[in-house]
C-alpha cells in the first residue's frame, strides 16, 4: 500500500471526479435516449471515440482547441441525426433488442472505419496552451485542463437541466418519456423530438470524447472500453433517470479512481462489484423506477 498523504488522496478524489464527469456526460446521453425512445445505443462509446478523432483533425487544421471543442460535438451530433433518421427510425415498434443489435453493428463499423482512415496507432491530443499548467488550489496543485473539463461538464449539465425544465421542448421531452401515447394523443409530433434528442445525446457523447482525449488518449477502442463503464453507471443509477446518472457516474468515477490508488489490480473489477451490490439491494438502480421498459 502506498504512503497515503492527504494531498495525494485529495488529488485522487479530484481525478475520480473528472472521470466521473466524463461518465456522467455519456450516461446522461444514454439515459435520455433510452428514457424517451427505449433505444439502448450501443454505439454511444464509438461516437464518443468519433468525437475525439474529429476533434483531433479539426485541431490539426485550425490549430485551435477551442474550435475543435465546438466543432467535434456538432459534427458528431449531426452524424447522430443521420443515424436516427436512417438506421434507428425503421426499427421503432420492433422491440428494444433490435436497436441495440443494430447499434452494436454500427459500433463495429465505426471502430474499423476509424482504424482504416486514421491508422491503428493511438493519437495524442494536446490540451490548449492556456490550460497547460497547474492551478494551485491552496491545499494542492491540480492540472488546469482537468479543472476545465469539470467546469465544462457542470455547464453542460446545468444547460441540459434548464433545457429540460424551462423550455417547451424540454417539457415535451419529459412528458414523452413518461407517457408517449398520451403526448401523441395531444397532437404533438414526438418523432421530431426523438430525432432532436437522439442528436443531442450523441453530441454530448462527442463532447465527452474530445474532453477525454487529452486525458485518456485517442484510440479506436477507447469508446468500447468506456461504454461498458457507462452501462454500469446507467444500471447503478437507474435507467432513464438523469439524477441517477449523475450520482452513479460520480460514484463509479470515484470508485475507479480510489481503487486505482489503493489496489490497482482491482480497479477494473471493482465497478462490477459495485454493480452487483446495487442490484442485490435495489434491483431498479439507485434512482430507477421498477419495470421501465422491461
Amino acid at each position, binding site marked *: 500500500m502506498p504512503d497515503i498523504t492527504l494531498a495525494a488522496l485529495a488529488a485522487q478524489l479530484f481525478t475520480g471526479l473528472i472521470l466521473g464527469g466524463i461518465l456522467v456526460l455519456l450516461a446522461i446521453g444514454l439515459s435520455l435516449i433510452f428514457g424517451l425512445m427505449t433505444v439502448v445505443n450501443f454505439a454511444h462509446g464509438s461516437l464518443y471515440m468519433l468525437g475525439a478523432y474529429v476533434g483531433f483533425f479539426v485541431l490539426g487544421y485550425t490549430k485551435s482547441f477551442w474550435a475543435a471543442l465546438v466543432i467535434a460535438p456538432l459534427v458528431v451530433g449531426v452524424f447522430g441525426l443521420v443515424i436516427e433518421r436512417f438506421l434507428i427510425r425503421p426499427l421503432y415498434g420492433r422491440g428494444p*433488442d433490435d436497436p441495440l443489435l443494430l447499434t452494436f453493428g454500427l459500433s463495429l*463499423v465505426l471502430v474499423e472505419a476509424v482504424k482504416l482512415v486514421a491508422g491503428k496507432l493511438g493519437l495524442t491530443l494536446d490540451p490548449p496552451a492556456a490550460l497547460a499548467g497547474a492551478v494551485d488550489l491552496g491545499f494542492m496543485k491540480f492540472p488546469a485542463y482537468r479543472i476545465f473539463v469539470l467546469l465544462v461538464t457542470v455547464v453542460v449539465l446545468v444547460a441540459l437541466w434548464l433545457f429540460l425544465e424551462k423550455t417547451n421542448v424540454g417539457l415535451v421531452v419529459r412528458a414523452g418519456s413518461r407517457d408517449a401515447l398520451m403526448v401523441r394523443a395531444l397532437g404533438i409530433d414526438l418523432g421530431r423530438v426523438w430525432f432532436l434528442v437522439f442528436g443531442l445525446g450523441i453530441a454530448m457523447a462527442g463532447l465527452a470524447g474530445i474532453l477525454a482525449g487529452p486525458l485518456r488518449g485517442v484510440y479506436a477502442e477507447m469508446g468500447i472500453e468506456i461504454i461498458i463503464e457507462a*452501462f454500469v453507471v446507467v444500471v447503478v443509477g437507474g435507467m432513464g433517470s438523469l439524477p441517477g446518472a449523475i450520482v452513479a457516474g460520480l460514484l463509479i468515477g470515484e470508485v475507479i479512481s480510489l481503487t486505482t490508488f489503493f489496489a490497482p489490480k482491482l480497479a477494473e473489477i471493482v465497478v462490477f462489484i459495485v454493480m452487483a451490490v446495487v442490484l442485490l439491494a435495489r434491483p431498479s438502480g439507485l434512482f430507477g423506477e421498477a419495470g421501465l421498459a422491461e
Partner: protein
Amino acid sequence: MSRGPFGRVAAWIAAHPVVSIVAFFAVLPFVVPYQSLATQMLVYGLFALGFNLLYGYTGLLSFGHAAYWGLGAYGAGIVLAKFGWTSLWAALAVGVLAAGLGGAFVGFFALRRRGIYFAMLTLAFAQLFYFIAFHLADLTGGDDGLRGIPQLPLGVFGWSIPLKTPLAFHYFALAWAAVAVAALQRVLKSPFGAVLAAIRENSDRATACGYDVNRARLLSFVFSASITGLAGALDALRLNVVPVEAMFWSTSGQVVIMTLLGGAGTFFGPFVGAATFLVLGDRLSVVLVDSWPLVIGAVFMAFVLFLPKGIWGTLIGGFHGR
C-alpha cells in the same frame, strides 16, 4: 411466404435436426478448402446453438456469452495443461460444469432485470470474468493465453482412440455436437420447452398461468451456458491454447452476429450463421486483412434492418420457430 421445393427440403431438415447435422458435418471436411475450417464451423455453430437457446427460444439477449465459452475453454484447458489430468472426458466435464456454474452465478444477478438491462448486465459480468482471467495469470496464462494443452487420445473402455489428425478430432467434436443437439431438441419439445416459448412470447401471461418464470429463465440460462461451455472446451482442445480474448466482449459479439445471420429461434440458424460468418471472415481477410469486421458489421446491420429472421429463418419461412 410460399414453400417451394427448397422450402420442403428445409422443412424436412428442420424436422430431423440430429440426423441432418451429423450428415452435413460428416461430409463438410471434404467440401471446404481446409478441414479445420469445418471443425471451426462445427464448434462455433455449437456455441451459437447455446446462445440461441437463451436468445431465440427464451427471448433473453445475452451480450456476455464469451464468459461461458471462456469458462468452458479454461476449465478443460487448465485441468489438462496445469493439473496434468489425462482424461478428455473429465476435462470436458469440468469445462461444462464451470460454464454452467458461471451461468447460474450471472443468471442469479442478471435475471433481476430484463430486456436491455439484461443485455447490459450480462456484458458487464462477462467483462468481470475477462478481467479475472486476465489477472489470474498463474492459472490462465493471462495475456499470453493458456498454452500447453496436450493432444490426448480419447479413452473409451480401455481403448485409446487417437485424435491427432484434424479429421479424427472433427468427428470427435461432431459426436459431442450431436449429443448437445439431441439434448436441446429433447428440452425444446418437452413441457419445459413450451414454458420457454410462452415466456418468450408473453412473460406476464406465463406468470399469470402459474409458471415459475424466473426459475425457467434461470434453467434456460444454465443450460445455454453449459452448451456454450462444451463448445468452448472443444475449441480449447482443437487449438491446444486458450487466448484470453476468448473471454473478451468481442467474442460475445461474434456469437450474437453468427446467430442473427443464421436466424435466431431456429434450430439450424446458429450453424448456418457460424458457417457464413467464418467463410465471410476467411475470404474477406484475404482482401481486407484486419479490416474485415467492417464488412461483417455492415452486413449485420443490413440483416437487422432488412432480414431480421436471418438466412435460415427466411428460407424456412414462418413454419418453424420465428
